[in-house]
């Protein structure tokens, strides 16, 4: 989907939400979420292209697959958590949004744990006992 289409979809959805908000706020919220999901899904194809390029580059350079995997997972977690948090915040539930963000942060930190242990073990092994 090109940028004009995305912007158009966004504008139309915004008007519709503004109209709906007077009558049924719940449906307005649903419409906003749906629009967000549609835009997100329409971008998935492009993201896949980018990821393919990145993976091929990394394989050519013989980057450890662990690194690439971790990076991609981090990107995914960050995006999804951000999306959910924004949607819930739009609905006026700031506390739930912050919880979703917390979950995203914790999951990212959990990804980092094996890396941290590896580095610390290496340093301990290097140091003379």
């Amino acid at each position, binding site marked *: 989907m090109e940028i004009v289409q995305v912007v158009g979809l966004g504008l139309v959805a915004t008007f519709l939400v503004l109209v709906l908000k007077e009558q049924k706020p719940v449906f307005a919220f649903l419409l906003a979420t749906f629009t967000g999901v549609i835009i997100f899904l329409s971008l998935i194809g492009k993201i896949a292209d980018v990821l393919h390029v990145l993976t091929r580059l990394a394989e050519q*350079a013989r980057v450890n697959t662990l690194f690439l995997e971790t990076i991609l997972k*981090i990107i995914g977690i960050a*995006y999804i958590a951000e999306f959910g948090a924004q949607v819930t915040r739009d609905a006026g539930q700031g506390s739930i949004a912050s919880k979703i963000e917390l979950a995203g*942060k914790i999951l990212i930190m959990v*990804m980092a744990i094996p890396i941290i242990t590896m580095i610390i073990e*290496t340093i301990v092994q290097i140091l003379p006992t």
Partner: protein
Amino acid sequence: MFELLNGWLKQIIILVLLATFMDLLLPNNAMDRYVKLVMGLLIILAILSPIFQLIRQDLDLTSLSDQQLEGSGRENLSSVKAIKQKGEQLTETQNRLIHEQAEQRMAATLRKGVEKRFPVEVIQSEVKTKGKEEARIEGVHLVVRRAADKGGEEAVDPVDPVDPVDIGMDSESRNKEDHQKDEPSSEQRALSRRIVQYVEETWKLPPEQIKVEVEDG
């Protein structure tokens, strides 16, 4: 070496590029610090990866020893020479000890065999060997005295009367000299010949390598 460095640098560069790219891609500031921390850790890991390989392959010991050899080469080389010399000396002494041990064992078995077979007391038994890897018996030397009291009295008894017969044959003074140095008259000579024969048969030696001296009891 160059390939290793090449791969390592490629890995780091691509990781840094990815990290910056991701930094751009990331949504608003909430996740920023965390993602940056993890990316930093990943880059540190990539930088440390050669050390991981070193540790995993246990190469550090060999490389360290190589470095030592290169660093203080002369001393270590001389010490290696000295160690080799010492090792040679040790093997030589070991061989010598083995030979001595073998000689002693053979002498003991010879002594036992002779004492068992003949009514004599073996005063001295020597076996000499020659050669390094495969030792061969060079010579056997036995000094034997006729046993007075032991079990082989049958042989001893007939010997005694022979002496007076010899003495009677010649003048006494001469006979005394003969007694002192070369008494082996017929009996002793026969005894020594028998012992030689026995040793020859049992040990499969040529007779010129066997020396048997018979002393007077």
